[in-house]
């Protein structure tokens, strides 16, 4: 059974890039869902369950931090924050709010795979 992934990013091109990285990575992906922002991501989560969420920081309507905070009220799906360089201070905030890992853009498919494996693995351990 492959991994179900929810991708949250306001840029359609970015989602495509990440999807491509996911396909290139050595991961058995089953389904990749997409959301434009935190608000949409919450709606997706309310309807479907996924194995892991990859979430951008800076988005209109509901940004990454708010999303993590809201999602954690009812959901324990692992979340990997996709940051860009220069926002490390925010990583701390996101982790504090309940994110499970982060990855700095741009990343290689290998990095992406490693980050996902690490988080999923950590999750299994915790469970």
């Amino acid at each position, binding site marked *: 059974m492959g991994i179900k992934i929810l991708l949250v990013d306001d840029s359609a091109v970015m989602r495509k890039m990440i999807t491509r990285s996911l396909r290139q990575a050595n991961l058995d992906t089953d389904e990749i869902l997409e959301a434009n922002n935190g608000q949409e991501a919450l709606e997706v989560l309310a309807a479907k369950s996924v194995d892991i969420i990859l979430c951008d920081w*800076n988005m209109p309507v509901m940004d990454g931090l708010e999303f993590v905070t809201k999602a954690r009220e009812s959901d324990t799906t692992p979340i990997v924050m996709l940051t860009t360089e220069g926002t490390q201070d925010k990583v701390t905030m996101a982790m504090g709010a309940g994110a499970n890992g982060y990855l700095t853009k741009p990343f290689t498919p290998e990095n992406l795979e490693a980050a996902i494996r690490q988080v999923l693995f950590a999750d299994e351990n915790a469970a």
Partner: protein
Amino acid sequence: MAESKQSDPNQFEPDELVAFPDDIYEDETLSEFVTEARGHIEDAEGALLELENDPYERDLIDRVFRAFHTIKGVAGFLQLEDMVVLAHSAEALLDRFRQTGFACGSEQASHVLEACDAMTSLIGHLAGDPAPKRKQLHDLAARLARVAGELTEDPGADSSATGATAGGAPASAPEPEAEVEEPAPREPEAEAGPPEQPESKPASEAPPKRRRRAKATGPSIQVGTRRLDRLVDMVGELVIAQQMVAQDPHLAKLRNDQFERKLAQVSKITRDLQESSMSLRMVAMKSTIQKMTRLVRDVASRSGKSVEFSATGEDTELDRNVVEAIGDPLVHMIRNSIDHGIEPEEERVRVGKPARGRVELRAYHRSGSIFIEIRDDGRGLKREAILAKAISKGIIPPDSSVEEMADAEILKLIFQPGFSTASTVTEISGRGVGMDVVRRNIEALRGKIDIQSEEGKGSVFTLRLPLTLAIIDGMIVRIGETQFVIPTLTIEQTMRLDEHKRHKLMVEGEMINVRGSLVPIHRLTQDLSVAPQGECQDTTLVQVEANDRRACLAVDEVVGQQQVVIKSLGKALGRTNGLAGGAILGDGRVAMILDIDSLLTALETPLATV
């Protein structure tokens, strides 16, 4: 944090061009990125211009930040290094505003606008435009970093430097602390300090917080315009085919109720389909207006004039193809208004006007057309100056009886080829295009341009454009046994042919006296290569006007008015003089749409005035 991406601009040769990796052009996401990035930059520009009125508005700074941030992210994946450097430096500067609470006043906004321009040229290069110079980009990036670095003193010192609206900036800057927090309403349990923002902004200087929320439009997808155009064309064909079925005489003989009902149903659906497919191509004026806002700013600052620009009608929608085509004429008209209309500050003050000039753009719908008005409160057009110029340029003969010319006629002289009111050709409006080109462009869109001007008070240029290029409002006339469509916009009046008023002149042909002026009468039977069949009884005259020429067309009957879908005549006929295209009428018959301008040219009509 900013330093890591900063490079030394001096490592580049002055002429070195930006070179993106070769394989980028094969990347299938590239065109999407170009579209998306352009959208981001447009949005950023809009927000920057709004910031000038509202330099503390956090939402606006966030919007600009996000634009560069997103571009940087994708550019990183695509390994577009120069783009990353530029986006990063802009983003870092914007982040400084957020962190320090400094006003992003017009001076600072200028730097970021420059970054927008540079980014636009980089994006353009991805889309096949010439490469920008590398050093310039990196110089700009370095400058942005420097500006960001300067934002460290307390905001009190800043207000003098920017000249922004920060009237009584607080000496005890409480603002920065409050502003370091993330924006937007946040859950308090997010462990960080209590973001309660007590009196972080003194009431005197804090602009009222306006919460603009974009209209909820639901999710959207991007579709290539070519596919869209094709769809609209196909629907046009469908409408015609449907009408042909509806009017088929054999089917009409059936007199079958059920069939009629079904046919009515099909007609209704076809009409709805046509309407909604047309609406797909409609776009709001917003981005055009935004570009004009930017233009006013640039032109005003370059010409050293202070100009306030206001625009209404952002939501006015018109055909995308029209929007694209009016860009240049609008640019030219606005440059014109600022360059020639708005007086220098001293002069304005001397004549008792506000020092700041005003240029206003209004876009609105009225009776099936789009109107765009450009209004300035400048010096207006001088009757004598125009006449003198027109005579010196040989546009009108020196012995013209100018006293008899109506003001409107005189004003229209500025649209004549070779006329340009600029006494000094400035860098800004001296682009070699005159108002004649503007008019030609507008008329090519089947639009009209009008001027009203009052000396000393200002001028108003009014463009009237069709909502769409695919449909035309036409008057259907019958000449002999043939029907023609005359575009309604060109028609001045229709009248019964009154024998008493008709003058037969040996040399100039037939004329008719219309309220004191002689207007030539033309018969398509004689004059047009695509002549109608049958004899014309010429009982009715349709007076038309195009490009300042007037003429009456003799017809047998005005059959009615109708919107028709324009069909191109196809390659076989090509551009036939006098014809704008074909249309299929309600009864399934084909009618030619007359192109009055080229028709009159073909007929070599002498100027019908005087």
